[in-house]
């Protein structure tokens, strides 16, 4: 039985915030490791948690649910969660779910760090 594919996630401390950069697709299989990565970063209570989605080609509702959980945890920890780098397809799913007004969304990591 082949094993499900995994997602590459980079975590970088940029002084003014922590940047989490997933790469690939965030679907059914990838949502759990993405959730674990976000949880680990959130537990450190950074001032800003920036999720750079520029390298995410596809996302479905397990990915969205993971980000909603991260947002709820960030609010509890007084962390500012910012999403950036959404391509048109990923942005479309936020709009269909009407979550584009719930999240703070910026264009780039630099804009997010300066916000």
């Amino acid at each position: 039985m082949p094993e499900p594919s995994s997602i590459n996630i980079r975590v970088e401390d940029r002084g003014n915030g922590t940047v989490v950069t997933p790469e690939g697709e965030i679907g059914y299989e990838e949502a759990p490791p993405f959730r674990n990565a976000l949880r680990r970063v959130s537990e450190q209570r950074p001032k800003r948690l920036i999720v750079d989605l520029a390298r995410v080609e596809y996302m479905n509702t397990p990915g969205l649910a993971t980000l909603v959980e991260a947002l709820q945890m960030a609010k509890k920890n007084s962390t500012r969660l910012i999403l950036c780098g959404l391509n048109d397809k990923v942005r479309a799913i936020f709009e269909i779910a009407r979550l584009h007004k719930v999240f703070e969304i910026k264009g780039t990591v630099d804009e997010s760090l300066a916000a």
Partner: protein
Amino acid sequence: MSDRPHIRIEMVSNPLYLSGARELVGSVARRLGFSELACGQIALAVDEALCNIIRHGYDRRPDGPIWLSLWPVPGDNGSAGGLKIVLEDEAKQIDPSAIRGRDLDDVKPGGLGVHIIREVMDEARYEKRDGHGMKLTMVKKIGPDSSAPGRTAAGGSDCGCGGGSCLDKQE
């Protein structure tokens, strides 16, 4: 439209194969003349429906059968007017009226899949199959907002043949 699907595949309820199913559906939608955005939405709807079957229908069991069938929906002048997609399984049955998307104003994780399916498809109908399992029928029509730029109003293509089944479409 013939009852016989133009494409019918059987897959197991293993998430490993979700991307393959998505790519198949997106590719067929592209050939039928849907825009890139619409192709992505159709593939997303199928992905969400398959995720729900795997997670809720089969309780994450990876070996349950799922059948995916595709038909072009006839349009004007014999061209494709849309895409019909049917997903069938042998998972547990639930009352179709109980399958609803959640209130979007209530921001919480989960429960978004059905909302997305209903939002991006023109039709989405859940039924119990005879005996066991569920059947989901989804239809997406090619309209002004969902057709590819090269597609003419009559559903023809830029190659000049005017036929809806032209294989040069979208090349």
